[in-house]
């Protein structure tokens, strides 16, 4: 028993609540419509139709002047019919006003309707209208936003009001804006229940709302209230292909520009990245000498040597390699180009090199007898000295000869700056220029021409016009007429060899004069120990 009662009570409560909710909802809708019409309609009473056969009319009065509802009478008359009266109800409104309502539940359309409002038999309002042109619909329902799959688009769809006969007169206004922004766009659509919004930004949240209106030749009305806004985010944008291609082109252009800049300044950059080991000859003036080496044999071993030398172009400390592969070198003469310095102040590097090559001392003396015999003594020497001194700006002191007392193959470091010469055409800017030194067995004129030609043939411009020639006290025995000479400038990092000239062409039968410009820092250490350096002529 109690269970049944409880169930009934529960059902009653639910129904009551539902009804109340609908009433509340309905009254809220009514309030909205009233507010809307108060804004839009100038005539009194303001009337609107919500469906096919209803009409709601109302008017507003100030609180102090307002009377009770029964003071008012609402008389309406259809064309060719008798008048009828509608019951008036009053409701309080905001702002100290009162609203009086009249609602008709059965209406006739397409026929003029006369409305007269009396207050205590005094006509206060008079209006004639057609009911089918004062429609004020509820906002559309079920507004949903979906993505179309395309960039910058959204599809809005809704449920049209369920009114018969009025589909072709239905008109909608869709208002959309970016979430948070007040500036939006509006689009109108006629007799449709969906719309594709275009031209939207990708990856942005949009707020869309819609309202409806009847706007036809038969039916017409006011704009409904806006629906609650619906939010939806558009699909994130892909990279615009135009932007991607433009940025690629720009980066390519920038890369090319940077490459060009790099290439044009490669010398400078390499100097910074791979600096040349500084040579200390600036600190130790006069300690560095240039030695002239004379070929001892006509050998094709020069080829081997050349083959070694072409292995690499990179600078390597020559002193290092000369330690590994000391070579037998016959020092013909020694030239000191810097100011006089104590001979004992040899740089430690050079002394190391010298030290290691002491055992090769004897090898140095091994000379081709044929060549040695051809050595002309004093006249040649004097001539050579004269030649060299004539172009030397700074007369070299002859006291430097003591440096060669050990007969060793010195690592020579050229302290001469090739002033006035063309700059080195590669990265070895700090490579010291070659000294033009040669002793020739020919006549002076030939020698001169040789000197001249030698100078000219030095493509790298390392030949200096200044040189001093100095014989060490311990001079080598005369070699003979078949000597070919080349000047070697050893900067400690590299050894530069001048093109060779031959003093005795007759003796050159076996070998070939290699007049190519070359740098020899490497070949010395690549040769196996004991192999003499031969400069083939």
């Amino acid at each position, binding site marked *: 028993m109690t269970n049944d009662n409880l169930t009934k009570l529960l059902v009653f409560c639910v129904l009551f609540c539902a009804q109340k909710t609908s009433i509340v909802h309905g009254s809220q809708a009514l309030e909205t419509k009233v507010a809307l019409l108060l804004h839009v309609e100038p005539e009194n009473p303001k009337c609107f139709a919500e469906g*096919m*056969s209803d009409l709601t009319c109302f008017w507003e009065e100030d609180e102090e002047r307002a009377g009770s509802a029964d003071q008012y009478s609402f008389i309406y008359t*259809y*064309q*060719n019919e008798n008048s009828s009266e509608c019951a008036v109800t009053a409701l309080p409104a905001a702002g100290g006003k009162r609203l009086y309502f009249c609602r008709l539940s*059965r*209406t*006739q*359309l*397409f*026929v*003029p309707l006369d409305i007269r409002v009396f207050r205590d038999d005094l006509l206060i309002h008079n209006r004639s209208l*057609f009911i*089918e042109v004062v429609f004020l619909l509820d906002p559309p329902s079920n507004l949903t936003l979906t993505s179309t799959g395309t960039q910058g688009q959204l599809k809005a769809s809704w449920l049209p009001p369920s009114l*018969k*006969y009025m589909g*072709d007169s239905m008109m909608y206004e869709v208002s959309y804006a970016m979430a948070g922004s007040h500036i939006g766009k509006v689009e109108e659509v006629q007799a449709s229940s969906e719309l594709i919004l275009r031209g939207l930004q990708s990856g942005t949240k949009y707020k869309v709302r819609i309202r409806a209106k009847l706007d036809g*030749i*038969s039916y017409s009305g006011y704009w409904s209230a806006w629906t609650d806004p619906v939010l939806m985010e558009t699909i994130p944008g892909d990279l615009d292909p135009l932007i991607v291609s433009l940025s690629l082109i720009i980066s390519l252009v920038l890369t090319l520009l940077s490459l060009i800049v790099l290439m044009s300044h490669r010398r400078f950059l390499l100097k910074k990245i791979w600096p040349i080991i500084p040579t200390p000859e600036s600190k130790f003036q006069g300690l560095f000498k240039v030695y002239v080496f004379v070929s001892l044999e006509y050998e094709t071993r020069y080829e081997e040597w050349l083959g070694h030398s072409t292995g690499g172009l990179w600078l390597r400390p020559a002193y290092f390699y000369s330690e590994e592969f000391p070579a037998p070198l016959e020092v013909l003469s020694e030239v000191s180009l810097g100011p006089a310095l104590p001979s004992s102040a040899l740089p430690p590097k050079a002394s190391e090199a010298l030290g290691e090559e002491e055992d090769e001392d004897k090898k140095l003396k091994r000379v081709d007898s044929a060549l040695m015999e051809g050595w002309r003594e004093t006249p040649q020497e004097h001539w050579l000295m004269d030649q060299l001194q004539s172009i030397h700006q700074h007369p070299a002191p002859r006291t430097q000869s003591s440096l060669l007392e050990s007969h060793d193959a010195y690592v020579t470091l050229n302290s001469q700056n090739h002033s006035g010469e063309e700059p080195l055409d590669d990265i070895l800017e700090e490579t010291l220029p070659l000294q033009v030194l040669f002793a020739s067995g020919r006549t002076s004129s030939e020698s001169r021409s040789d000197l001249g030609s030698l100078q000219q043939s030095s493509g790298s411009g390392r030949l200096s016009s200044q040189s001093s020639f100095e014989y060490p006290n311990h001079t080598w025995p005369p070699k003979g007429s078949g000597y070919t000479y080349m000047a070697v400038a050893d900067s400690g990092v590299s050894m530069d060899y001048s093109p060779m000239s031959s003093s005795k062409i007759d003796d050159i039968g076996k070998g070939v004069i290699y007049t190519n410009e070359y740098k020899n820092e490497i070949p010395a250490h690549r040769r196996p120990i004991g192999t003499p350096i031969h400069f083939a002529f």
Partner: protein
Amino acid sequence: MLLEWTKPGLSNPLRPICDLRVLKHFIEEARDAEAAMLACKEGRGLPEPVTVPQTKVDFNVWERKNALEQAQEVQSGLWLLNQAIGSLRATVTNTALHSHIDNSLRNIFSIGQVLRSLNIQEYTPPAGGVAGGEETWRVSSASELLQVHVNFLRGKVHLLLSNTPVCHQGSS
């Protein structure tokens, strides 16, 4: 039988005219005529009252009627209007109004053609010449007559044309 075959016009089936923009055009021209009549100050009154159809539509009532009844109502109303506006033409002297009235008459005839294309039965007037009934009333002014004309087209004719089963066969 041979005469049946050679009967002109009626045997040719017309393509259904479902586009309501045609009716919209007629309604607008009827409105122009009413406005012109209101603007004109002379010749407002009719020599004698004319019978015109009722234009009011109570949807509850209308929907209870079947298609045939609706069609009859529309057809008889159009016939009455045709008679009334025809008689109006004789009384009006203004040439501008004449063109409006002629237009209205042509439009009524065109609506009849549209209804025929939709297989709506034609109205045969009663033998007495004057149709009465619930759905008629009498007007005595020209502006009222033209107003009735407009409202009739907007109302019943429009309702009938927008709900013809022939036109809704493909969509519904």
